[in-house]
């Protein structure tokens, strides 16, 4: 147990410690994302009257985050690896109010990867329908953006936009974690 604490303490907080130019870019990006989230996801306006008395509480505790449901609709798993990286201690995207959820019913954003395989077409449509409005769809990776290496075939519907409406596209094979963050920010800037 002591070893564990020693390692935690000596590792420190990598998210803040490393001040390479890239990480400054990351911080900047994150702050931008957070600003947009705060602006658009303030719950005050949509709160029913009965809850309005607690509006201040809601504003501080619940506003300012977006929930992402990731859907692999036929990807090679490359994009998933980089989306995973968003949660590692370097990017730690949750600190900017972006978190991944287990159900589309909890989600604001569907982050879809892969060309949509025909065997996943209905599953993706149902996931889309299960996501409450207002919702955004982000197609992440070259395959999701345009079909990539797989295109359209007897087995693949190609780009995500061939199956459900897409609000933003993040190219890359796979997109790096920074590219994913930029893409999310881009989505929020456009969707004001």
């Amino acid at each position: 147990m002591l070893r564990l604490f020693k390692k935690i303490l000596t590792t420190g907080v990598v998210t803040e410690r490393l001040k390479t130019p890239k990480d400054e870019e990351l911080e900047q990006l994150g702050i931008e994302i957070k600003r947009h989230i705060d602006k658009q996801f303030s719950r005050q306006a949509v709160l029913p009257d009965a809850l309005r008395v607690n509006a201040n509480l809601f504003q501080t505790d619940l506003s300012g985050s977006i929930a992402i449901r990731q859907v692999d609709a036929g990807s090679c798993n490359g994009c998933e690896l980089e989306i995973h990286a968003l949660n590692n201690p370097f990017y730690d995207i949750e600190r900017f109010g972006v978190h991944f959820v287990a159900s589309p019913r909890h989600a604001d954003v569907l982050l879809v990867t892969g060309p949509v395989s025909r065997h996943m077409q209905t599953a993706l449509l149902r996931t889309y329908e299960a996501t409450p409005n207002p919702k955004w769809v982000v197609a992440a990776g070259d395959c999701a953006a345009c079909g990539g290496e797989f295109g359209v075939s007897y087995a693949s519907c190609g780009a995500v936009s061939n199956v459900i409406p897409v609000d933003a596209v993040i190219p890359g094979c796979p997109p790096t974690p920074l590219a994913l963050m930029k893409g999310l920010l881009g989505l929020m800037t456009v969707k004001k």
Partner: protein
Amino acid sequence: MSASNWTADFLAQLNADISVVEIDLSSARLWQIESHAWQRFAEQAMQQNLRWAAGWAEQVQNRFLINACFEKHGEYVLLRTIVDDANPELPSQATVYPAANRSERHTQDMFGIKFAGHPDNRRWTRHQAWIENSYPLRKDFPVQGKPVGITAPDMHYPFIKSHGAGTYEIPVGPVHAGIIEPGHFRFQAVGELILNLEERLGYVHKGIEKIAEGRTPESLSKLAGRVSGDTTVGHCWAACMAMEQAAGITIPPRAALIRGILAERERIANHMGDLGAICNDVAFVFAQMQFTRLRELWLRTNATVFGHRLLMDRIVPGGVACDLSEASCNLIRKEIVELRKELTEVILAVDLNSSLEDRLYTAGFLSEQTAAAFGTLGYVGRASGQDFDVRRDTPYAPYDQVTVRVALETQGDIASRFWVRYKEIRTALHLIEDFIDRLVAGELRSEWQTPPAGSEGLGIVEGWRGEIISHIRFDADNKIARFYPRDPSQLNWPALEKLVLDNIVPDFPVCNKSVNGSYSGNDL
């Protein structure tokens, strides 16, 4: 029996019963037999303890070639038979080798070849994207197929049913709760105990074998690098090896060493990610954070040195597309020293943690017998006593210059798989240092030569999940006629169905993670 003479003895014994035509193929022994003897061969092979490694078919004009690959003591035999397209039927090998089960079902769905006596001939790769009695890999099936607007879900797949008081079913997927590939798991349980698990995969089938046809070598290597994104180096290497054999090309020594470095870097990155994820699945977040941190640093070096975090498209037909400068070599050497120090610290903290021991020891047990029966590969096999590694047993350049120490455990539980993978990281670090020391000046790429029409190659490499087999046949004009990649997951998925039995449902995620099969590499 020495490593090399079992084939001669076996062939002599076979010839008494089955007539075998030997054909010389640069990469493996090719034995051709009559189709009616297909199953009898398997019976004899089983008696001789041959391992069934891969099975696939191809269409050449109006005939089907059916292939099966066997291995013993690092020696491969490619078995082949020919059936006419008027009556494509032959006796099943799955009755003898459980490992052949899903492969034959895939061939049945994709080619319409019937394996008589197959113990379970339900559809496997086919859901509803194409209709029954049409077969995508036949040459007369158009790449575009005849898709309808919305492909229906595969509602009526006949799953195994359970009956009796207190038993119930849990359907999971295809869309799972995490950031993970899609597939369906059907559990039968009593209370928390898993009575049976049935996997239903095929959701990410995207026609890789079909869209490979007609590609150039360059374009095929890109596709091969996306068979399974986490194994981009492994699959790309196997496919390039097969193409190079067909073209009669030897890659330059420097390129081989760089390929070795890339492959070991991929192994380490994936193992680190999964060691963390295994711990995370039992809520030990400390290890998850440490391992993902180390993995991120490792991937950043990949980007700096090789220009791609996951090393995609670094291996190309004839060699590699990236070089290693002296400065890069020093950077990697330094990084390895640092990583060893960090790993020692983290692993000590992990090893001495009793709550982790409680969850990982004895959970997800896979016996040596079951592992052998299913031809289980890589760290899953090696944690259950399957002492096999292509890098050591059928060494290819650059592994023919070094000694590969193969980690082996016999306990067969999640902890075993965890420790095998940790040891494999250590071995891989040594190998990278070794390859850097041996790095010779020279070309990075041999000049490509158009292979003769009909020529074929069999690329076999040890990817991070285990043995990858890639078969390629060329058409005229440098075009691919057939590409079949056998990811190790195809043989490891059935082992997962067995190792979760008698575990509790909440332990399924950690059992699954300890195997970490590729969905994409399985579904193609």
